[in-house]
């Protein structure tokens, strides 16, 4: 059993901000020819270093545009860093957006299988868990209705229910708990706490300091792509609120 589950080693990522979007070959050639193909180099993250041990719950905090979501996406393997390496050990359940990959024309039940297979569950596993998903999402009368008729809260409930049917080694949560009503938020909290007690490692992004304090014992503060602080949630959130 590995003790460190996430190792972020000197990670930097650069985005090129093209002044004008070049989407076509003709435009590209003309601009290239006229030497107008200018872009700004923008480092969204600079030299980020940290390790997360098994069972820790870590919050990433910072203002809008500080690089939190970018960092989560790198850890989830969606983005590749320009420099540095990220190593993760174990299964990752990314909850960067609930219901990414839902097909609006399919029913909730059909989407369970589609979304579940996107998250890497097998069909037989999903069949076993279908009842649990129905129960948790509370979509009793709507399970065989195309989800284009659903409210955003209902879609989020379904997404959360599918994403959390199994306990992953690493759970990545990006500001998704702000959807749904109070009851459902409480339910999500409970589910996350349950997973934490089973030894899941949590990476959490939220703008609500209260939520962060409630769930996480360690926090990392990002500002303009740089790591400002890493430590106990109380201390780091104090630095953040004094910024």
């Amino acid at each position, binding site marked *: 059993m590995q003790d460190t589950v996430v190792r972020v080693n000197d990670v930097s990522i650069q985005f090129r901000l093209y002044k004008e979007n070049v*989407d076509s070959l003709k435009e*590209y050639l003309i601009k290239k020819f006229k030497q107008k193909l200018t872009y700004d180099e923008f480092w969204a993250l600079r030299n980020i270093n940290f390790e997360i041990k098994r069972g820790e719950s870590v919050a990433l905090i910072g203002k809008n545009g500080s690089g939190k979501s970018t960092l989560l996406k790198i850890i989830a393997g*969606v983005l*590749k860093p320009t420099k540095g390496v990220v190593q993760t050990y174990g299964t990752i359940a990314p909850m960067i957006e609930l219901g990414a*990959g839902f097909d609006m024309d*399919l029913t909730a039940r059909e989407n369970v*299988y589609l979304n579940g297979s996107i998250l890497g569950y097998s069909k037989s596993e999903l069949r076993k868990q279908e009842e649990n998903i129905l129960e948790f999402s509370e979509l009793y009368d709507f399970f065989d209705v195309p989800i284009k008729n659903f409210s955003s809260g209902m879609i989020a409930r379904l997404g959360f229910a599918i994403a959390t049917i199994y306990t992953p080694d690493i759970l990545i949560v990006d500001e998704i708990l702000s959807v749904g009503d109070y009851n459902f938020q409480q339910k999500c909290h409970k589910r996350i706490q349950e997973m934490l007690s089973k030894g899941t490692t949590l990476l959490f992004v939220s703008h609500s300091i209260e939520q962060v304090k409630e769930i996480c014992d360690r926090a990392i503060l990002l500002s303009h792509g740089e790591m400002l602080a890493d430590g106990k949630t109380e201390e780091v959130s104090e630095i953040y609120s004094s910024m």
Partner: protein
Amino acid sequence: MKKYINNFMKYRELLLELIRRDIKTKYRRSVLGMLWSVLNPLGMMVVLSVVFSNVFRANIENFPVYLMCGQLIFNFFNEATNVAMGSILGNASLIKKVYLPKYIFPTAKICSTFVNLMTSFIALLVVVVFTRTPIHPTIFLVIFPIIYVFLFALGFGIFLSAIVVVFRDMQHFYSILVTAWMYLTPIFYPIDILPNYLKIIVGLNPLANIIEMFREVVLYGAVPSMVLHVKCLVSCGIALVVGLYVFYKQQDKFILRV
């Protein structure tokens, strides 16, 4: 290599699920549903047969079957590559949020169109029976041209899906290319009527070769020559290698460009 195979096996269920989704949503809410996969080629065949046997004289023996063989293969290629082309752009929101092997999207589209092609063969069977075309034992060799057109469309579709992310013009340009390609493929005319220089071009057209092989086994009861097999295999190989290579080189840029 082993890593790639393992990864593919892991996402095999997702591929099946995506194919199932495409098939389910394609005809959802239409009254006749899957039946359209049969009715569509039949209807097209009737229209074209009437046009070509009354307006233009094609003088081809058993024209309905001749036409349908070409039409089924070409339409499959056309539809498959077109839907595959938009598959990366269409799944942009997913690609930005979850790690997935990205080739799975164009592959799923090609496969679901392929399932459609299989259903369309019922239409061909109907026409064969209806025109009292003799059925030869070579019909079992039909598997070869079908596999070739699948592989060729797969390679080409994967290539297009990667290119279109970088150059969106491709979507518009491709429809012109396909039209030219269609006229350079003997679908509703016999290859003999072409002048020599065009015969050479058509001889290099992979789809023309595949359709020729398809007709040989279905219509003429001939065993395809080794040369024809080699021609088809080489074009499939080139399409797959170039497609996968370009896709592989481009795929890390997708998330920034879609």
